[in-house]
């Protein structure tokens, strides 16, 4: 498994988690007005929304580092090992979010933990269907998309956006966990598609 670990460069996911930690602390409760299809033409968004991206991209990058021939013919179950690492990283991302939130740096950090799970799940799902580059673009694109069309006329975020909802929103939490589970399952079941969006 040493070869598997070295090939995947899993230590980069630790770097991603560290960047997530510092991004969450740095973002704090800072807000910015972004363009949006709302009655006033813009919406105020917490910068914390974008903090899970480093950990999400790090996971996708590591999963993309493969030795296809060796993995197909080897007896080691690298898919299961990948799932175990991704679950660990997801759990650590949640711990970091709780830590930042409880340390008083930003109350909204808890939502960032849930969002990290959702974006990682979305990225892994798209990766299984369209490839790694599209997966990263989909995770980032989701954030841009929901800031544009994710708010109703009363400036309340829709439930389907998941990442814009409050930290205590049960439906968003369930959706994020489901998306993470689907992504995790697809990561273990199938190799990413390499034709089409390459």
């Amino acid at each position, binding site marked *: 498994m040493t070869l598997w670990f070295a090939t995947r460069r899993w230590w980069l996911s630790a770097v991603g988690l560290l960047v997530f930690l510092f991004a969450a602390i740095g973002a704090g409760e800072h807000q910015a*007005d972004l363009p949006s299809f709302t009655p006033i033409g813009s919406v105020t968004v917490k910068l914390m929304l974008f903090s899970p991206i480093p950990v999400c991209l790090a996971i996708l990058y590591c999963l993309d580092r493969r030795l296809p021939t060796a993995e197909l013919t080897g007896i080691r179950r690298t898919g299961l090992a990948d799932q175990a690492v991704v679950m660990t990283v997801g759990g650590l991302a949640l711990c970091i979010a709780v830590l930042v939130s409880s340390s008083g740096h930003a109350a909204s950090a808890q939502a960032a933990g849930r969002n990290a799970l959702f974006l990682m799940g979305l990225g892994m799902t798209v990766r299984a269907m369209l490839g790694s580059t599209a997966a990263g673009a989909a995770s980032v694109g989701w954030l841009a998309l929901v800031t544009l069309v994710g708010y109703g006329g009363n400036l309340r975020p829709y439930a389907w956006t998941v990442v814009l909802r409050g930290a205590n929103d049960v439906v968003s939490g369930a959706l994020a966990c489901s998306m993470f589970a689907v992504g995790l399952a697809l990561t273990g079941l199938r190799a990413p598609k390499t034709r089409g969006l390459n």
Partner: protein
Amino acid sequence: MRFLTSFRISSAKWAAMLLLPAVWFLVIEWARFAQVGFGTAVAEAASFPVFAIAALCSACATWEAGRLRRSRIWSLAPVHTRLRVAANALLPVVTLACAAIGLGLVAGSVDLGVLPDGAGASSIASTLAVVLSYIIIGFSLGCVVHRTLAAPLMLLGVYLWMTVPASSNVMWIRHLTGEQITSSTVTDSVSFTAFIAPVLLSGGVAIGLALLSSTIRPKALRGGVAMSCAVVGTLLAYLMVANWGPDAPMIARTGATVCAQSKPKICVPREFEPQIPRFHKAATEVMLRLKTAGLDAPDTLALVSKRTEVSSTTWRFDPSPEESNEALRVTVALSAIPALPDCFADNEGYSGSKEGIRSWLLLTAGVDRDTVASQADPKQMRSAIAALKMSKTSQIRWFHSTIRALKSCSATPEPADAAS
């Protein structure tokens, strides 16, 4: 490679499906707040989605660079020059950027009912230059960073860079992103420098990165020239905007004023020309009443920039074609109050107010008393009613002494005090 083949295998094909509808709706969204029939606004509306165009196109360029990198194109025996290989990969992306801007112009023209005018050319040129710069920056990033990371990072980085600073407290950074945060009006145009600054920044960095891949020898010279371009562009851009406030500087719009009618003559921007008869009718009615009350009626009512000097016989007014006739009478009546300094800026405890003469002007102009009362402070309304009970000479004396007080930021008089 033929263009259609390049486009078929390019990521631009997928990006187009998302970008082009987004551009259409973003332009329509921006145009909600723009003046109908104003050609410059069409170009500015088409420039508004620059954050989406630059982010998606630069991510596509990164993607294409990643594909060339993965195919190890740069290490193969050369058949074409590097520039041609890069241009071939980027042509679909550049075409998508141009198509998005062109579609924005069409959407703006349809929504505002007018074709873009020449004054908007600098806005479009700036947007195009900024987008091309970010395409080059994205391609350069994709040449050195794994595309799984590079493309999403470019997408997110450019999106945040172009949207977040607009609400930042650091004023200079707002003007360097390429997102045009200040819009032209029918009386004032955004200064040309506002379009140059973001191009200097992104263009300097893009040229620097492009030079890094050139064949200039020795390598140290290449690196030095590239670094110089990026630093000089950034510094020039910063120095240009360092002292700017939240909005970019504006200049008075010239050559667009149309004058017609007489007693009073009405001067408005050419976009408002069809409204002149309606403006004149409202002005005639109101001026007659103000003249009866003892005010000297002006020769001209002009909707011009505050930066333009006007004669003493000209009153500035600020009508809008969408205003009802009642609102238009209010606008004309209030034009009797000249431009005043912002006394509260220097003295937060300033006790003077123009609300008294404002209510008096509206009541004198024949505006419904209930309408005036609904907009006025009760105390100031009482002052206005008290003034109306005085003689004409006393009313005019109170009006002029209030204007003098407001101009010198001193306390405004009560009607009874001014009359005595």
